[in-house]
């Protein structure tokens, strides 16, 4: 591009009336032929020890003269403006989707402004100024942290905690593993990543299949090939979360199944596959040492489901209404402090008023330091 312009410049017939650039600029055409510069590349590489900075021919870079072409004005404008804009932002910044802070801008000094605008009044305070945080909080500010920066692990981001829902997903995993086994591709696919199966249809398809267990050996009755097909398809991964199941739905589903499916016996590959699939669907990763103790699917469920957090003593007592019928016991939500005691006898308002009248802090110490004696006693100093 640059070469072409300089070539046009060098054409002598053009520069009759147009303002001429300086001689140095006009001499932008290089005396080094492109072929020769190619030949010198190797020595430049040697000199700079690798990729050489700057253009191969420094003489062509001398001062870009104003474009003087025969092109129509519109084309000229659009091309020059787009180029200048492009030149300013580096390619990497343009391609990256991260929101980066803008370039530094400078505002005219007060004196210059006053000279140019007689009605200018300097501001006396910072009111109305936009507040911008420091760069360390740049990514916390709204609009700066986008989708492209979110991390996505293998396991589901939404962790399933309810036992009923876990059971549904476990059944799905068991059915899928059995389907792969029936198709004879389980050995190949046990360690691979199965298709996430975000669509509700896929899940219903897997859950519709019947599992019959006899002495730990399970057989699948249903469309095994379709289930296996959905798992092993190399179709493009659609960004989708596994379908959300409510607890009620899950309860209905688990009731409709014969519970014997949970007696399916596990071996090491099956255990591995179920653990992996369960992590993918529910975000629950069962530790190795625990998983190895599981011999049936029921055991996996026991290990994966977490007991609800035990209540705190205060909550237990409240639930039991332990102090309801004791006349001399009162239960408070939080600790009863000196202020609470004053409030109870109705003295706090007066104290607060008096403190304010004397310009003393109502709570805390104000500017006064904490008493040193306490630190002496507790051995801090």
């Amino acid at each position, binding site marked *: 591009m640059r070469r072409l312009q300089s070539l046009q410049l060098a054409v002598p017939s053009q520069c009759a009336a147009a303002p001429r650039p300086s001689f140095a600029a006009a001499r932008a055409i290089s005396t080094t032929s492109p072929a020769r510069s190619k030949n010198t590349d190797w020595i430049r590489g040697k000199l700079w020890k690798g990729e050489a900075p700057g253009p191969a021919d420094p003489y062509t870079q001398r001062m870009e003269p104003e474009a003087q072409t025969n092109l129509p004005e519109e084309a000229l404008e659009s091309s020059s403006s787009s180029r200048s804009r492009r030149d300013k932002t580096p390619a990497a910044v343009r391609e990256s989707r991260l929101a980066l802070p803008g370039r530094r801008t400078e505002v005219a000094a007060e004196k210059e402004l006053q000279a140019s605008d007689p009605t200018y009044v300097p501001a006396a305070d910072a009111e109305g100024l936009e507040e911008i945080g420091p760069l360390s909080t740049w990514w916390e500010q709204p609009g700066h942290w986008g989708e492209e920066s979110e*991390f996505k692990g293998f396991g589901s981001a939404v962790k399933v905690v309810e036992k009923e829902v876990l059971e549904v997903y476990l059944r799905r995993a068991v059915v899928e593993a059995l389907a792969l086994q029936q198709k004879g591709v389980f050995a190949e696919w046990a360690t691979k990543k199965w298709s996430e199966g975000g669509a509700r249809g896929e899940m219903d398809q897997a859950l519709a299949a019947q599992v019959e267990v006899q002495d730990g050996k399970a057989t699948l009755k249903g469309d095994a090939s379709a289930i296996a097909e959905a798992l092993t398809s190399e179709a493009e991964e659609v960004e989708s979360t596994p379908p959300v199941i409510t607890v009620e739905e899950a309860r209905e589903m688990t009731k409709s199944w014969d519970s014997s499916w949970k007696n399916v016996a596990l071996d090491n590959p099956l255990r591995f596959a179920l653990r992996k699939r369960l992590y993918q669907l529910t975000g629950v990763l069962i530790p*190795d040492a625990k998983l190895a103790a599981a011999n049936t699917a029921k055991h996996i469920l026991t*290990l994966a489901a977490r007991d609800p957090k035990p209540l705190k003593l205060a909550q237990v007592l409240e639930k039991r209404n332990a102090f309801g019928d004791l006349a001399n016991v009162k239960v408070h939500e939080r600790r009863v402090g000196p202020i609470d005691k004053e409030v109870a006898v109705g003295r706090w308002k007066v104290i607060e008023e008096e403190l304010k009248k004397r310009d003393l802090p109502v709570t805390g110490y104000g500017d006064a330091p904490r008493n040193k004696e306490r630190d002496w006693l507790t051995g801090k100093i």
Partner: protein
Amino acid sequence: MASKGIGCLGEAMAALRISAAKPATTSFSRQFTRSMATEAPLKQAANSPVTAQSLMQSWNPISTVPVTIHSFPSLEPQSLEQWSVQHLYLPLRRDLLHLAVVYEGDNTRQGTASSKTRYDVHGSHRKMRPQKGTGRARLGSRQSPLLRGGGKTFGPHPRDFGTRLNRKVYDKAWRTALSYRYRRGELIICEDGMELAMPQDFDLVADKFLKDGLREAYLKKYMSGVLSTLGLGKEYGRTLFVTGDRRDRLYEAMEQVPWEGRALDLEDVDVKDLLETGKVVMERSVLREMIEQHQSDLVSRIVVNGLPKGGPPLGEKEL
């Protein structure tokens, strides 16, 4: 007294009747339980609900335990290995761990505290005032430990605080620490070459265009997100990452969030570090190396029939 005795007898008779009335399915020895003594409740494994705890207690691996190898940082399970129980399923021995931690602590003490005795303090040894006649206490030189600016009588001097521990004890403690982590499900093994993969958008601009703390701030936010997604962050008790050598991205990111955990290479890890954080994430090769270096109690140096007795095999791949 007598009535109480009769009462006891009655109870015993009742117990006998109950045990006789039990169906014949009970085993032979059960029929002859000593019903005169206090009866302990019989275990009925079939009827009581199976809890996670009882399941774990029923599992006693004899030779090997499974170890899943994950990819990093997605934590996708990739393969399965079997490790010897001698390596990763040792019983917890708090005494060994205590010995090891104390030993390490002693050996990392700097021991450079140094004070001057009266013979090291600079100055003249002239007698400060006459022995008699001034009405004041007798006094020798200016360096006397009784005086301000004088020497210190029994002050600290540079020394080595290091203690010793039998190599086999230390090695067993090391594997005990790993086993403890494994047993509690806090040991996560990843594939070799563990490195934090960053979004491509970040990689494009990271080196040249993120300046003035922007890059660090980005890494901080990103790493916090990663750790909380994977369940390795502060609310899970921090995480120790162990790699074979320094991995720039991972280490730099972890340096931004020291409250979420830390990253160390193999040489810098101690038993104490393994026990410190909530989770330990390490490379497969690091685990191998650790156990190879710490199995002196399993490996003999005595050569029999031309071969020394080696320990159990290190991690055999199953899947």
